[in-house]
């Protein structure tokens, strides 16, 4: 299990999602709430000034960093290593897992605590660690809930268990973790906390993801709200951070800008409760820092985007602002995307990382309304990239249905041959006449079928506009 969620084909997953009224209501109200909170902390926040300027600054920082990625990765790894840390560049998910398994073996680790684990979810690290005899403990509340529920998968980048309500969480805790309390969130949280307390103490290794790494100092930065990440990174003697190779900034100044963009865009907070910055190397008498610090820098398909029209997809700071405004995500939720990266950025990123064979349909799961592009704090042109994916998908022989290719070819000819178009305009009322009833078409032929399955199709107008226009002009002279 890794990036992929479920085995069903896309449309079956969509059907499942559409039948789940609870989930859909939860998605819609969460979207409305998150959207509103984000606006309060961005466009409507007087303190921050011009939000568009912040977006431009964010875009510029991300572009600069990605355009000089080799330089900054080199700087980061040198600085990290110079302070005594261990850096490993993993080409694939398997490479990363193998390296981490090796560290666990050497440490004879029995218990691993984790936090901020999107990227480890992507590479399926938990299974890899369990294969070498480790007990893996998710400590982010949402991830903990998913783990207790027989490893359910995230449905949202920032709020992974968004698809569950408090009653479902209560039932899960009751049936799978011996919980006896009510569905009160504070009670549920207290239970999780009590379960996790011992876990923190007995952990041999702490593993986190990484919001950003600071190249100039060789540090990693975690923006969190729960405090558990600090437990994960301070108790065990061994710390492993896994980061996507694009998740870095040149200096602390850029980190400042991006943390603002991230916190505000993700959950409408001016800043998260904790922003934890960790650098390898500890003073002699320091007791709350790991003695051994590994940084795993992951490619796993990311370099597919470098130097291509998709490079800016790597600018993503995983705030989910695009997910929170996407009208498609609103209706189908996260699991339908079949990837741990959902919504518009998921539809762009998943095919880059996992290929068109697996994720080729995702770029079509968008009406190209561009709400995502408008929301992105680092100005990734998401809706345009969805079109670029479609172009690539079409270019791969045999991928779209042959009929579609043919009809688009016909479209190209029809849309560039005025005489043919006029024949169509004049012929349409006659051709469609048998299907017209009360001024519209309820049961259209051929390619109109999917349209009329749920809507009326307009009957072609009886008048010919060009003839009217000619008459009209004549009358005015």
């Amino acid at each position, binding site marked *: 299990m890794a990036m992929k969620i479920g085995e069903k084909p896309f449309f079956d997953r*969509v059907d499942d999602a*559409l039948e789940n009224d609870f989930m859909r209501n939860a998605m819609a109200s969460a979207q409305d709430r998150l959207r509103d909170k984000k606006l309060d902390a961005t466009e409507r926040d007087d303190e921050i000034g011009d939000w568009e300027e912040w977006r431009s600054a964010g875009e510029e920082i991300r572009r600069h960093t990605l355009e000089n990625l080799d330089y900054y990765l080199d700087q980061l790894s040198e600085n990290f290593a110079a302070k005594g840390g261990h850096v490993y560049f993993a080409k694939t998910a398997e490479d990363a897992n193998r390296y981490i398994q090796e560290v666990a073996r050497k440490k004879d680790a029995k218990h691993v605590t984790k936090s901020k684990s999107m990227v480890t979810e992507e590479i399926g690290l938990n299974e890899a660690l369990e294969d070498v005899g480790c007990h893996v403990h998710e400590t982010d509340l949402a991830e903990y809930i998913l783990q207790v529920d027989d490893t359910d998968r995230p449905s949202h980048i920032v709020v992974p268990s968004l698809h569950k309500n408090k009653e479902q969480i209560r039932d899960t805790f009751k049936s799978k973790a011996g919980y006896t309390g009510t569905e009160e969130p504070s009670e549920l949280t207290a239970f999780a906390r009590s379960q996790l307390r011992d876990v923190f103490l007995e952990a041999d290794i702490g593993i986190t993801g990484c919001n950003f790494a600071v190249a100039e100092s060789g540090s990693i930065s975690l923006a969190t709200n729960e405090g558990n990440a600090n437990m994960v990174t301070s108790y065990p003697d061994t710390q492993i951070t896994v980061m996507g190779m694009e998740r870095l900034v040149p200096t602390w100044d850029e980190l400042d800008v991006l943390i603002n963009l991230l916190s505000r865009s993700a959950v409408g907070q001016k800043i998260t409760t904790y922003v934890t910055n960790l650098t390898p190397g500890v003073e002699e008498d320091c007791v709350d820092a790991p003695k051994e610090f590994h940084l795993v820098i992951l490619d796993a398909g990311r370099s597919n985007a470098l130097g291509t029209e998709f490079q800016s997809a790597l600018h993503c700071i995983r705030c989910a602002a695009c997910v929170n405004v996407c009208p498609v995500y*609103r209706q189908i939720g996260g699991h339908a995307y079949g990837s741990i990266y959902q919504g518009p950025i998921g539809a762009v990123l998943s095919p880059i990382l996992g290929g068109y064979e697996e994720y080729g349909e995702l770029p079509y799961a968008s009406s190209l309304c561009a709400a995502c592009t408008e929301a992105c704090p680092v100005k990734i042109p998401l809706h345009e990239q969805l079109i670029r994916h*479609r172009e690539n998908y079409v270019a791969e022989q045999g991928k779209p249905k042959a009929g579609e290719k043919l009809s*688009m070819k016909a479209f190209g000819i029809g*849309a560039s041959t005025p005489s043919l178009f006029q024949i169509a305009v004049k012929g349409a009322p006659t051709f469609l006449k048998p299907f017209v009833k009360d001024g519209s078409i309820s049961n259209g032929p051929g390619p109109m079928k999917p*349209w009329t*399955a*749920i809507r009326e199709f307009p009957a072609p107008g009886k008048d010919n506009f*060009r003839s009217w226009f000619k008459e009209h002009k004549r009358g005015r002279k």
Partner: protein
Amino acid sequence: MKVSLFVTCLGELFYQDVAKDVVEVLERLGCEVDLPKGQICCGQPAYNSGYRKDAQKAAKQMIASFEDSEYIVTPSGSCAGMFKEYPGMFKEDKEWQDRAQAVADRTYEFTQFIVNVLGVEDVGAAYTARATYHTSCHMMRLLKEKEAPFKLLENVKGLELLPLENSYDCCGFGGTFAVKMVPISEQMVDEKVRHVEESTADVLIAADGGCLMNIKGRIDRKGKPIEVKHIAQILNSRA
């Protein structure tokens, strides 16, 4: 002022009345309207589906049809937005890119042209109704025109404009999305129709044929008593 009308394929096939209203409003505002002959469709269905080459054929046809025009006006924010995409479609062909840019620079959506070029906010229309307005995504976000339709509608005598909940959400049209992703599109348009109903408006107004066709199609299928109008029909109404 000389204005070339890009009537759009939907306008020519289904919404001739809207097209006539557009002509009449523009003429009343002192424009001399012509209808360049070779025009067909902006190519968006092919472009957005990933068929760039087929879309380029449509684009070239449109560029050739409109490159002599002083102003190009179209009653669709989405089609106007597509014209703005043309230069990007010909990155490898400098000559066509330049021609595309020249056309894109002179293209306006109908209400945008009236407000921003003609400088008119009151066209002297009168239409008595409780109405709400659907802000089409492409007009709002690709063309970045958010205000012009509202400025014009606010000055229509007798028109009470009601707010629309979640107005920023797409209606589920999205060109081929509406037929490729029917179950998702259905839920999106249903939510839109629900919000229109909740607004208590009797009339839904929009500036884009695609959205109108989608929302009206669903309203009619469900037998809802809500009228759907293109903004040109409202602006060409007289007391």
